[in-house]
């Protein structure tokens, strides 16, 4: 027994080497480097120049712009996660029944998955243009959607929700397929209405996939970048300056890698906390 155990540990660790190498180069090293850089003031080349300790973090936590970014990010993530999951769920449930033209509809609902965020953003930019855009023309309004601090965030958030809904549609469709049809039959015999069936059978049946989708969606929402860069560049008045965009801006525009790294670390901590909380909740809400 003892002998076998020893052998086990050596060879199996060898098998880990290739994947660990990839992880070290692309994950662990940059991760450590980011933490290291966040403790320094960096020069324009991105080299650590002056040790600043937790100064970058202190500066951030006392900067109104950073707190604004946090607020914007949370609102943005909330709209995106709720929006994309609802849209994905509704479309998946709609397409769960066989009817003529179902292929067309399922393709249409899954399509956002295949659209690059930047090209979608460019299309929306044209559609939302105040003078020549179709949205204002159809609604008969004269709203400067992307340049009004009151509407800009909702525009990018709704676009992102739609973009993310494609993959959710796919997950939920797969989840619905896994629910045994016979329980619906039994429920019908018992006289359960469609709505009761949905809330008592479909939703609990979807809960494992729902949980996974939720985690992925939250992380995805926090990382949205392309559409914001193209549509609003964080403006107007920083009303769409989500933290990922703020990191990009600081690192590659203002050449402040120290501050950008500190923001990355804070973002990491936030997402890790959220994910850990989610896994804790999972035990209560998810039925496998």
């Amino acid at each position, binding site marked *: 027994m003892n002998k076998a155990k020893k052998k086990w540990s050596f060879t199996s660790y060898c098998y880990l080497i290739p994947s660990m190498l990839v992880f070290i180069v692309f994950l*662990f090293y*940059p991760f450590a480097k980011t933490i290291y850089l966040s403790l320094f003031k960096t020069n*324009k*080349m*991105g080299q650590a120049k*002056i040790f600043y300790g937790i100064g970058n973090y202190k500066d951030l936590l006392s900067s109104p712009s950073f707190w604004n970014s946090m607020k914007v990010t949370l609102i943005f993530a909330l709209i995106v996660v709720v929006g994309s999951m609802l849209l994905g769920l509704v479309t998946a449930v709609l397409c769960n029944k066989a009817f003529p033209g179902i292929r067309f509809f399922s393709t249409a609902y899954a399509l956002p998955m295949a659209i690059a965020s930047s090209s979608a953003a460019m299309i929306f930019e044209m559609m939302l243009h105040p003078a020549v855009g179709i949205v204002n023309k159809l609604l008969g309004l004269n709203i*400067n959607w992307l*340049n009004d601090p009151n509407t800009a965030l909702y525009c990018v958030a709704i676009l992102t929700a739609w973009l993310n809904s494609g993959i959710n549609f796919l997950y939920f469709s797969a989840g619905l397929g896994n629910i045994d049809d016979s329980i619906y039959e039994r429920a019908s015999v018992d006289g359960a209405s469609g709505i009761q069936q949905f809330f008592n059978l479909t939703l609990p049946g979807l809960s494992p996939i729902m949980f996974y989708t939720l985690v992925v969606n939250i992380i995805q929402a926090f990382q949205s970048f392309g559409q914001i860069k193209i549509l609003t560049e964080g403006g107007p008045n920083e009303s769409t300056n989500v933290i990922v965009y703020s990191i990009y801006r600081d690192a590659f525009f203002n050449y402040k890698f120290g501050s950008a790294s500190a923001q990355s670390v804070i973002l990491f901590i936030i997402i890790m906390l959220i994910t850990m909380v989610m896994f804790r909740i999972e035990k209560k809400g998810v039925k496998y």
Partner: protein
Amino acid sequence: MKKKVVAVLLTAVMTMGTLVGCGGKTLAEQQGGTDAAAAAETTEGAATEGAAAQDSTAAMADASEVSGTEVTFWHSMGGVNGEAIDYLVKKFNDENKLGIKVTAQYQGEYDDSLNKLKSAQIGNMGADLVQVYEIGTRFMMDSGWIVPMQDLIDADSYDTSAIEPNLAAYYTIDGKQYSMPFNSSTPIMYYNKDMFAKAGITEVPNRLEAIGEVGQQLVDKGGAGEAISMGIYGWFFEQLISEQGLQYADNGNGRDAAATAVAFDENGAAKNILTAWKSLSESGLAPNVGKGGDAGLADFSAGKSAITLGSTASLKQILQDVNNKFEVGTAYFPKVASSDKGGVSIGGASLWALNNNDPKKLRATWELVKFLLSAESQAYWNAQTGYFPVTTAAHEEQVFKDNIAKYPQFQTAIDQLHDSAPEYAGALLSVFPEARATVESEIESLLNGKEDVDAAVKNMADSINKSIADYNEVNS
């Protein structure tokens, strides 16, 4: 228990993934930095000494020795402009008798290209010639990577008298021309001639105040939805400072020495601009059309606004979009008040020769620059893109004459350039990209009614001064 451990590990990996998008690039920056560090350290911060030190190493080979040399040209021209570059480079490759082969590579927008350059500066992996936007000038000068164009001009006894003095002036610091202007533009005012005729306005306004005076007439009688669609663009703000004959930054606009603070708050330039802008905005004549140089163009082309401000390089696009629905007039970029005595400065980008310690490559690069500057190339470039011909010799080319006959509006741009004294060349600032973004964001707040003019000016100055101080702290 085991499941919990796996879950936590998965969590950690998943969340780490969020960092990599940013961290990974920082890593590249870092690697780029370390090797270049020693080199950069010696030259950085002391731009002039650094440049002087390079003179000895940056020797240029003789034209006869360069056969078979390959050089790489990084540019940021997409679309039609990119095709024009490809055409010129192909022509150079086919026609040069020295056996030089040039590869032109599109490197994304100016910001992206500069970032890639920073990463690529490990040994000689980067480009030999790179196109950098005008606000990156100070950065490039201080980078320690470059061979000033002046050295090549002197070594080859090249005659620079044909180069437009106003264009060269921007890139000339302490009497030394650091880079070669390539795609230069100035902003001009575009106006809807039909609306002006309908409103019975014969005199085209030449200042923001005057736009305010005739604006209501354009809306009431001319049929305009708004008098002027003016994008919130840092470049316009800088131009309006130049037009007042005032300076953006201290130390002679950052040209005598690196700027230590902005000057537009104390000399009143910013206040004048913002007051005029705000009053246009409040009277509804200049609604907020968004950020960026192109933001106001769509309203104009759609026949909604009577006036717009834009780069000369947008002329073709505008004429194409308007498609003869109305007659497009061009006029000089407006001043703020009638008493202003300044002129416009230029925008666009210039060509920088990088020091790869290879005399043959340097010579080949210089040959390419000379080709790109030739009258024939410049006439073609101007006709294809709408950027200025860098050399006045191009004015004699048939291609240029045909083009100006087709687009007589372009003459305005050339006249305006010649009417502006080279002393209004504009500021040099190490943190210009950031400063420009700050200016735009504050103007946005002002127009949205979040702050008044004085607060906007103060916030601009404070924020940019802090950036300059931070930059000087770590980069000197």
